[in-house]
């Protein structure tokens, strides 16, 4: 990419910049400098991604070290990657701003910032990876930094959750690595494009596909493997929860899509795809019921993530209609990408709002949040808008996402998913309404812990970050083409130059 006559290596920069930021915030002792550097670099990252999307063709690739696959490592970004890089850059900027206030008078800030930037580096690495082992290292970066960030909360519950999360994450990585080892044994390469070109539907491919899928599903928290998610996402500090729900689980889902739709597509069967779809459908109901029963606001939002992740897995049965990707592959990927972005914005907004409520009330027990509407109108407003998007009501990003998903389901003749999507929306409405109902009742009787003395400017700054994300969710509903154009003509299946 050329900017002002200088050729910038965009893809390496997206990894190098956060790493440099991590070192800088580790070495600097001043809080003000630390947050300013973070904000500047987050802004720079967003700028690079936007310029990358605007200036050139839809797909990028880069050969590190000049060796080329299979000896060297390549980087690649297609429409789906760019969409995820964009949403990551947007959320990193907003969450960094929020954290500047959230951690402003806390000794945890010093530990938070370096690990936060290392997490961002890991996410960007995963989104532009084109090499199976490189993905393993990226997964470890994401997993270990996410665990460290959850542990920052320091409570007993957070530590237990972090420990479970760490064990689940390491187990997932090892399953993934064994799958890669089998692939390397059979095909002699780690490059995704070369693997894809040689892939055959034989027992070894199925073994590798199962291992890689189990590893990634464990990290994505699809239903039977979701056990670590609610406690981890509920007990982490609010900005961390936002990043975990909005971005971290999406990274492993993104890799799953890469493997199923691009690398292993000759080996994938309709039954396997439908199996994932059914698990996704069960996850939607299970997550919604968990959210309805949750006693704490953040736990409710965490269970909501379990449910929303279920929708993403409808991609597989829809894309593999008639065992061929040609008919509905592109449309399904477009719908799910839109869903990922809408959910990321809404869920991040929701967690940031929940963090605001937690900071200003000192607790987040739903039954004791009476009168929140008067005390924290901004945070509650944010929560409500994000809820509208999660339910899928117009005008919001969530509405467009579900509408696209329903379209594909009807076009491909799989009407039963329509029922699942609609019922999920209904259940979502129930738990969102439950919170709003409490918040608007008995306006004068809010329980606020006495020791909570938070400066007003701080909470307003934090609320503004959440509100910005919520407004973005609505804007996304009016401007669907923003994302669809990004995906157009560069879907991971049709574009031959994607990983190549």
């Amino acid at each position: 990419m050329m900017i002002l006559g200088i050729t910038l290596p965009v893809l390496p920069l997206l990894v190098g910049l956060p790493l440099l930021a991590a070192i800088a915030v580790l070495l600097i002792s001043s809080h003000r400098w630390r947050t300013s550097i973070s904000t500047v670099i987050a802004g720079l990252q967003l700028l690079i991604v936007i310029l990358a999307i605007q200036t050139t063709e839809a797909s990028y690739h880069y050969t590190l070290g000049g060796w080329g696959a299979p000896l060297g490592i390549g980087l690649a970004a297609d429409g789906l990657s760019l969409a995820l890089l964009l949403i990551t850059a947007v959320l990193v900027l907003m969450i960094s701003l929020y954290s500047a206030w959230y951690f402003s008078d806390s000794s945890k800030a010093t530990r938070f910032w370096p690990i936060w930037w290392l997490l961002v580096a890991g996410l960007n690495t995963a989104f532009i990876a084109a090499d199976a082992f490189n993905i393993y290292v990226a997964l470890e970066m994401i997993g270990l930094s996410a665990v460290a960030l959850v542990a920052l909360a320091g409570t007993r519950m957070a530590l237990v959750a972090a420990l479970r999360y760490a064990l689940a994450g390491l187990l997932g990585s090892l399953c993934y690595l064994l799958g890669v080892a089998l692939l390397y044994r059979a095909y002699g390469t780690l490059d995704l494009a070369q693997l894809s070109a040689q892939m055959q539907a034989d027992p070894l491919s199925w073994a590798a596909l199962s291992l890689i899928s189990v590893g990634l599903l464990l990290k994505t928290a699809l239903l039977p493997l979701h056990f670590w998610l609610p406690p981890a996402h509920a007990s982490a500090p609010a900005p961390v929860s936002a990043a975990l729900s909005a971005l971290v689980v999406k990274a492993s889902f993104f890799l799953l899509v890469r493997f199923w739709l691009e690398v292993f597509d000759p080996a994938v069967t309709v039954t396997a795809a439908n199996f994932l779809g059914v698990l996704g459908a069960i996850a939607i109901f299970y997550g919604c019921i968990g959210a309805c029963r949750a006693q704490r606001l953040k736990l409710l939002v965490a269970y909501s993530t379990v449910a929303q992740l279920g929708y993403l897995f409808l991609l597989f049965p829809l894309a593999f209609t008639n065992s061929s990707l040609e008919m509905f592959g592109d449309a399904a990927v477009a719908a799910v990408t839109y869903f990922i972005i809408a959910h990321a914005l809404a869920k991040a907004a929701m967690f940031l709002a929940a963090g605001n409520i937690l900071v200003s009330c000192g607790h987040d027990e739903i039954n004791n949040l009476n009168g929140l509407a008067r005390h924290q109108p901004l945070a509650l407003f944010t929560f409500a808008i994000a809820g509208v998007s999660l339910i899928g009501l117009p005008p919001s990003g969530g509405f467009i996402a579900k509408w696209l998903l329903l379209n594909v389901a009807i076009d491909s003749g799989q009407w039963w998913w329509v029922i699942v999507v609609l019922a999920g929306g209904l259940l979502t409405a129930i738990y969102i309404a439950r919170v709003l109902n409490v918040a608007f009742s008995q306006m004068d009787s809010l329980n606020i812990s006495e020791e909570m003395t938070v400066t007003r400017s701080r909470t307003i700054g934090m609320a503004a970050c959440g509100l910005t994300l919520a407004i973005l969710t609505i804007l996304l509903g009016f401007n669907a083409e923003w994302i669809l154009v990004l995906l157009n003509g560069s879907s991971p299946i049709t574009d031959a130059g994607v990983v190549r």
Partner: protein
Amino acid sequence: MTQDLLYSITGIVLFGIGLFGVIAAAHIIRKLIALNTMGIGVFMVLLAAARHGVVTDPVPHAMVLTGIVVAVAGTALCLWLALQLQLLDSPVPEEPP
């Protein structure tokens, strides 16, 4: 039976033993030992794949080196979390000056 097949199978068996341990064991240290055993199993499959008669492929060796370092990092993080938990339960008494 060739050497690489023997060690590939051994690697998968180690992976299975470790998997059983991770799920069945209760103690955190046992779980971590089982995870590391799984790791050794994966490394064995990789290194066995690197053997081609006289030629040895250096790429899996580099991968395993990376894997070993990542494994120790993960183990240390888990142990640290477990110790922090323990610290919450039974705080260390302040040492007399």
